[in-house]
């Protein structure tokens, strides 16, 4: 039986940030938290492997108490067990500290049930750095396979896996050993709809909570703010461009006139654009 660990993160849903219909300002209030969309591709792939070969899926996240909802949602899709690694000491963690905490927790999980594959989302929509997956792999000594577009075959007995990895202009077909860590490329699959029995199971699930001790972390200098080499020194708003667009209009407002007026103004002020245009084979 294959044991898969899927690392997920609960993030604010930036897609639900709406724009006011009249003033065009961005409204952030009440934006709900969701499972990082990239993680869903990882979870769905894990579920497909479970469908095919049978298996057990543990979902894990490092986060605040409310991240429990994200784990519960993962269970509703079909995951079997959920662990929330939460501790005040994790606050302020950058990707190095996060990968340390997650790797420790996965080592603890391994004590009960050996882990065959670790899945991570490619990156998070709120952090966007794509570094936690590689970090966890390195610490656990797992082969790292990122930007995987499809899993061709899994042979648990021979401990082999063949995958397709997105590269510039094509895909690499890679063969490697299990256990390994995989980050899935977006669009590589489509998350299934949760069934009612799974949703009920999720509503009844008790999510395990591990503090840093339960997660097997002894060295506190490696977690949270202390364990983070990078520090945010300032946050600021981008300076607005002061020059607005020059609006092209003509008396009649006919499209052909406007087009002609645009070309005249543009080529007049930006001759290099005209040159670029004419670089084409005549």
């Amino acid at each position, binding site marked *: 039986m294959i044991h898969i660990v899927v690392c997920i993160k609960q993030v604010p849903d930036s897609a639900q940030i709406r724009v006011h219909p009249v003033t065009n300002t961005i409204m952030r209030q009440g934006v709900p938290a969701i499972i990082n969309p990239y993680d869903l591709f990882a979870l769905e792939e894990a579920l497909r492997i479970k469908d095919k070969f049978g298996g057990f899926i543990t979902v894990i996240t490092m986060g605040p108490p409310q991240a429990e909802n994200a784990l519960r949602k993962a269970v509703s899709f079909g995951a079997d067990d959920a662990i929330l690694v939460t501790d005040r000491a994790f606050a302020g963690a950058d990707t190095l500290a996060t990968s340390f905490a997650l790797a420790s927790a996965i080592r603890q999980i391994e004590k009960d049930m050996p882990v065959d594959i670790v899945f991570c989302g490619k990156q998070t929509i709120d952090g966007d750095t794509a*570094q936690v997956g590689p970090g966890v792999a390195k610490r656990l000594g797992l082969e790292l396979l990122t930007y995987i577009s499809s899993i061709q075959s899994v042979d648990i007995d021979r401990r082999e896996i063949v995958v397709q990895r997105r590269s*510039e202009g094509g895909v690499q*077909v890679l063969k490697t050993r299990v256990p390994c860590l995989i980050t899935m490329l977006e669009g590589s699959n489509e998350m299934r709809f949760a069934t009612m029995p799974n949703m009920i199971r999720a509503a009844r699930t008790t999510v395990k909570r591990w503090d840093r001790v339960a997660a097997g972390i002894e060295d506190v200098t490696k977690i949270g703010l202390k364990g983070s080499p990078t520090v945010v020194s300032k*946050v600021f708003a981008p300076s607005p461009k002061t020059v*607005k667009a020059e609006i*092209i209009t003509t008396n009649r407002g006919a499209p052909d006139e*406007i087009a002609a007026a645009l070309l005249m103004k543009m080529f007049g002020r930006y001759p290099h654009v005209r040159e670029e*245009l004419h670089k084409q084979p005549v």
Partner: protein
Amino acid sequence: MSEETKKPAGKKKFELDPALAEYRGIWVFIEHERGVAHGVSWELLGEGRKLADKLGVQLAGVVMGAPGEDTRRYCQEAFYYGADHCYLIEDPLLKDYRNQPYTKGLTDLVNAYKPEILLLGATTLGRDLAGSVATTLKTGLTADCTELNIDVDIRSLLATRPTFGGSLLCTIQTLNYRPQMATVRPRVMAMPPRDTTRSGGIAEQKLSMIETDIITKVLEFIPDQNTNKINLEYADIIVSGGKGLKKQENFQLIRDLATVLGAEVGATRPLIQSGWVEAGRQVGQTGKTVRPKLYIAAGISGAIQHRVGMDASDVIVAINSDPNAPIFDFATYGIVGNAMTILPALTQAFRDELAARAAAVPA
């Protein structure tokens, strides 16, 4: 310049750990695959040059690959784009990119020659490699930076990147760890001039691994079927469409204009998600960053997520029926009108322009 919102009060003067003082120099990883070097490497050399000059240190390119002419060629190009010298690891094991040998090679180099800053392109390869290297070296890595600067007094790299969904920026420092690592997306930095008079020395290093050490094997490489290769990032003219086009059929007007201009076609994220346009054509925060000479945006509102992907374009022409669309705040020229009538008119006007030029050229 950008405005600050906070300044920490009474901050203790930061002092670099003496053990790290010996880390000197700026390195740029030169990315290449299957005989082609990625343009982002040169863009990073251009940026690295500025940083190196501020710090008064050397700029080096790092090339790893199979033995042969290509690697030497990349070193040469690195000199042309501003490197002072190069580090080179040649080994058959490095023929195709694999995480394990590349991570070992690069980390060994870093441990041997100790750069204070290491830059990589934020491509699939670069991110795969950067994450592993940073974790192995237990150092700080800032991804997808939009701006790089130096605090010379404390020799700190100031890496600026977007945060909170792109509406704000943050500056991140890796104060007491070395090397300070950062990745930058293609086209975020400008391509520097190419000076063929430049040259420099190459320091070679061995990769101390054997094939059986390496667990992952490359079985094959399957090139993309798409004969219509998308080269959005390095295109000089781009025509882009957004939700204001209303219907999928209307996107054809974008393609028509692009054909006449010899331009690449781009789109906003909603159009990709709706399946109107292929994924490789997305311009924006979670898509590609572009910096063409001319960017024509039709039916695009100009929301921040799209804007950050294209506002470095030389000339931006925006077409939108809403006079209050944010895109008119930063475009060069704006046309308030129906894209469905303006686009064909533009297509015709450009066609006429090209025809007039053709007529003027002596046969």
